[in-house]
């Protein structure tokens, strides 16, 4: 990004040609991952709606074993976490790593195999759970038969990311590369350890939930978080054309995340039948997370300072900044939630569900949406067909997730307060949560509408059905002083 002005006409043309060659090498496999991700997003949304409606209308689709609440809920998580978010994250890793390393993707055809294997795994996970092979291990509900597909697919993607990194022509290693490099190494290790200890050689008793939450929490912390944070580190400076606020801070942010996040999962078992020292150690880890969160927050938001007007124009920036702000908020909330007095009320309630969606959706998914709006046109050479569809997508998802998180947090908190008071009959708690759960379903429906708009946009772009635009990027509005 340095000294763009001094680049000669010749250098500019050369680097544009280099970028075009990199994008061309990524086009096939990355779009394959991205398309599958969008499909799973739709599947996951439908399963979410089924599960959500069942919580306030228990007769909805009752009698169908395949769609009973427990199964629909497990299948939803598999579809969105492993189908949508992971496939989109893999696309994010591959493309950004190539761009930042200034290296073309080697042997792209093997990546099709990786994508296919991963999709077979997700199919086994989602349909296996619906057909009654769910494992009731949070985040690891997939039937164990899916594991070999996941491990192989993930192994190939990780190897490719490292291979691209090793072929880099750019001497400077940008912070996004640090995050991606960490993520593609942490996630396979996490997954293998969890599979091994929970399914292949099951450990006894409460060690299982301990491993379970170490995995479940770290999938968010050491897979989705580094990729989403890294993506924001790439997109924000790239779109506004300004370097990251403090490079030094970004490095502190990376290493403190690596050190502290991995320790943070045990607060899911606070007050549970585990040794007290474990929960305490985790609470310390969670509180220390304030350091990386603060570092990232300062960096992202200070980089944006003075450029917020651009949110009016750029779809990619708008989604990314929404995600970055959510990251700051949800992380501080997360640190707070690790405290015993807080968790005493929030634990076991819908408040936790709201928090999980705050992180996985308002932060990770929104940034991935932002990346799609930036990346896909560069891969297909085609602009988005309609700014109106993007607008529908943005407003439905941003209003939807805000309503979701706020409504369910309030409902969940009071649910916890009442649950802690044994004089309140359980019936009253169930009746109290009903309007909040109905609100959740409505918010979920809004999110689904947004996803449909996104899927139509995406299909039109990738399928080549939309018009090829020559007048520049699709923007929400025309920036002042710039001709159409």
């Amino acid at each position: 990004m340095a000294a763009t002005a001094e680049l000669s006409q010749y250098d500019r043309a050369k680097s544009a040609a280099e970028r075009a060659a990199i994008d061309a090498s990524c086009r096939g496999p990355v779009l394959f991952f991205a398309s599958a991700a969008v499909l799973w997003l739709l599947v996951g949304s439908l399963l979410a709606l089924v599960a959500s409606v069942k919580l306030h209308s228990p007769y909805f689709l009752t009698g169908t074993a395949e769609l009973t609440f427990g199964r629909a809920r497990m299948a939803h998580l598999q579809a969105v976490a492993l189908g949508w978010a992971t496939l989109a994250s893999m696309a994010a890793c591959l493309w950004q790593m190539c761009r930042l390393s200034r290296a073309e993707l080697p042997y792209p055809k093997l990546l099709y195999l990786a994508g296919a294997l991963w999709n077979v795994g997700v199919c086994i996970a989602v349909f296996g759970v619906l057909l009654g092979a769910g494992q009731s291990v949070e985040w690891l509900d997939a039937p164990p038969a899916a594991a070999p597909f996941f491990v192989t697919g993930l192994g190939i993607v990780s190897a490719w990311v490292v291979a691209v990194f090793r072929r880099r022509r750019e001497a400077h290693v940008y912070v996004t590369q640090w995050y991606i490099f960490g993520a593609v190494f942490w996630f396979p290790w996490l997954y293998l350890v969890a599979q091994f200890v929970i399914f292949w050689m099951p450990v006894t008793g409460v060690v299982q939930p301990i491993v379970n939450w170490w995995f479940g929490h770290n999938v968010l912390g050491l897979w989705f978080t580094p990729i989403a944070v890294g993506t924001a580190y790439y997109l924000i400076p790239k779109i506004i054309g300004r370097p990251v606020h403090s490079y030094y801070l970004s490095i502190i942010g990376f290493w403190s995340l690596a050190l502290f996040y991995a320790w943070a999962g045990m607060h899911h078992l606070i007050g549970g039948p585990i040794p007290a020292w474990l929960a305490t150690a985790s609470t310390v880890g969670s509180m220390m997370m304030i350091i990386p969160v603060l570092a990232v927050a300062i960096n992202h938001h200070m980089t944006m300072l003075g450029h917020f007007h651009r949110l009016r124009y750029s779809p990619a920036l708008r989604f990314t900044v929404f995600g970055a702000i959510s990251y700051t908020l949800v992380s501080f909330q997360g640190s707070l939630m690790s405290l015993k007095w807080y968790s005493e009320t929030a634990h076991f309630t819908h408040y936790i569900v709201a928090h999980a969606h705050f992180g996985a959706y308002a932060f990770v998914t929104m940034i991935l949406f932002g990346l799609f709006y930036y990346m896909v046109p560069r891969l297909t050479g085609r602009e988005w067909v309609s700014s109106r569809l993007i607008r529908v997508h943005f407003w439905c998802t941003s209003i939807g997730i805000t309503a979701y998180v706020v409504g369910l947090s309030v409902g969940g908190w009071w649910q916890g307060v009442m649950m802690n008071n044994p004089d309140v009959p359980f019936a009253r708690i169930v009746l109290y949560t009903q309007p909040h759960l109905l609100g959740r379903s409505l918010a979920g429906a809004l999110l689904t509408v947004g996803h449909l708009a996104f899927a139509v946009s995406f299909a039109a772009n990738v399928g080549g059905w939309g018009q090829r635009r020559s007048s520049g990027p699709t923007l929400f509005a025309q920036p002042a002083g710039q001709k159409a």
Partner: protein
Amino acid sequence: MDRGMVIFLGALLTFSSSWLGLIVFPYWQLGNEKPYQKGEGEDPYPRPLSGAELAGMKVYQHNGCMYCHTQQVRSARFGGWTDADGVERTGADIKRSYGLRRTVSRDYIYDNPTMLGTMRTGPDLANIGVRNPSDAWHHTHLLNPRSANVWSVMPSFPFFYTREKVTGARSDRALALGREWTVDPGYRWRPSDGEWDGIVAKRGPELVAQYTAGRAESIDISTADGKKRLLEFWLTTPEEDYQVVPNADGDALVAYLLALRKAEVPLPEAKE
């Protein structure tokens, strides 16, 4: 040194610390717990599940029951509230009779998977076998939870039950479900349009005769509206010659629920 190697080693070290601290060390501390035997000749606690209970655990697992029900009783220091006299108290879980004491790791040594759960959309089940030992109650509740609590939002589980024609004597395992709950519109045996056409074709005149016996008007089953009205009548009329009995899954699940007796026996490590 190569930058990639620095990142790799750093990532390895930081991650290993949590792996050692949160996996290896707890495993070393808890991996070898044995059942507790108070004195000679007394039954050790806990005991492993067997037979139908084990099969029922699989039903519980595969249907994701854990996502609404926890199986852990929190300590008396958790769950603060103020009672009617304005006195601060704790121990809501125990006060709600979820268990006699908090659950500790030893309660779970035979569980695989250990389904602690993290959500209480429904009540805690750690001790449900002691709290509600009636298998008949569990069966009618599973078939339609509204039959036990009208406010319940738990799914109905008709697929754990079979509707069958009574041949000879009624089965003594048949559920005694109130009539208004047997016609739950969600039940599997509410016929689809095709099935209903089949029933009308076969038993139409007989059903119309039943209908007209009780009232002045009649029904014309050749019209769609007539068929629909006959269906409503059919659904709300008791079927004396049919009974609902648990299938293998239903039996197993109830056996498992009745075997859930955690936090029932005092343990030395759970004083509070």
